[in-house]
């Protein structure tokens, strides 16, 4: 995943005429299967000898959220809770799937 990210970063940097990337912002959803710490660690290891060798990785962690229409309670649906933890209702609206894995922006010169 870190390598996919770095390849995307380099592609976007080249397109924008950036020679040195200073920061990379990503959104990682709670249910995406990616662990933010692991991504951070892998990114640090993989970024050497790339345009992003001095870049800081900023991870915005997106929780997986549901809303119970029966008691109006907001709650985390991670990992796989789809009934209301307060009233045990089943009429749940998924507000945030938590599947997100997005490169939001890069910064550089």
């Amino acid at each position: 995943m870190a390598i996919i990210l770095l390849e995307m970063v380099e592609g976007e940097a080249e397109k924008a005429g950036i020679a040195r990337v200073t920061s990379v912002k990503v959104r990682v959803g709670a249910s995406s299967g990616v662990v933010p710490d692991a991504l951070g660690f892998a990114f640090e290891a993989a970024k050497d000898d790339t345009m992003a060798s001095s870049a800081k990785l900023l991870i915005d962690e997106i929780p997986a959220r549901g809303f119970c229409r029966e008691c109006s309670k907001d709650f985390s649906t991670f990992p796989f809770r789809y009934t209301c933890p307060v009233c045990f209702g089943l009429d749940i609206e998924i507000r945030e799937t938590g599947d997100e894995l997005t490169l939001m922006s890069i910064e550089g010169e």
Partner: protein
Amino acid sequence: MEIDVQKGLLAANERLAQENRSLFARSGLFVVNIMSGPGAGKTTLLERTCETLAARLNIAVIEGDLQTSEDAERIAAKGVHAVQINTGGGCHLDAKMVQGALKSFDLDALDLLIIENVGNLVCPAAFDLGESARVMLLSTPEGDEKPIKYPLMFTRSQLLIINKMDLLDYVDFDVKRVEGYAKKINPGIEIITVSAKTGEGMEGWYGWLTGKLEKKS
């Protein structure tokens, strides 16, 4: 200078997976992505499947492993065309690797393509290959708590095959517990129990496959 990107990390794989999906649809081909931990019995299951179904169906297999062509050779020995993908160090197959392997087949001449993924309970779940269905294999010696330990794999599969039922007396494995966990995290998942070694329950697997093929045509 800040550049707005807003692109999914898996977008490139998704695009290739959809290309694969269109190719398969054009050829009327049903494609199964079989996943499991290492040693659960995927290849043995496929050997038995080829022995039984190759006479009435045109089957081909794509094998995924880090190294060796052992698995492709086992399938080829059953008279079925098998292509081996070696990932080198990669822990899962992705859509690009599968697309490369498709060149070895005449897709229009096939009824069923089975992709045996790299043995791994984590990464394969995140990479769409363009398949029609995902099948998960869990064997009795692996333990019955696997669905809650590795939920992503179970959430993204349509069928769970519990293999090595012949070893049930020798291991601590509660089938009802696995079924409970699996249905909790994926209410729509279908579950069958088999022993690829003895043949027990395999008719259920063949029935599932032929049922899917009939629905397609």
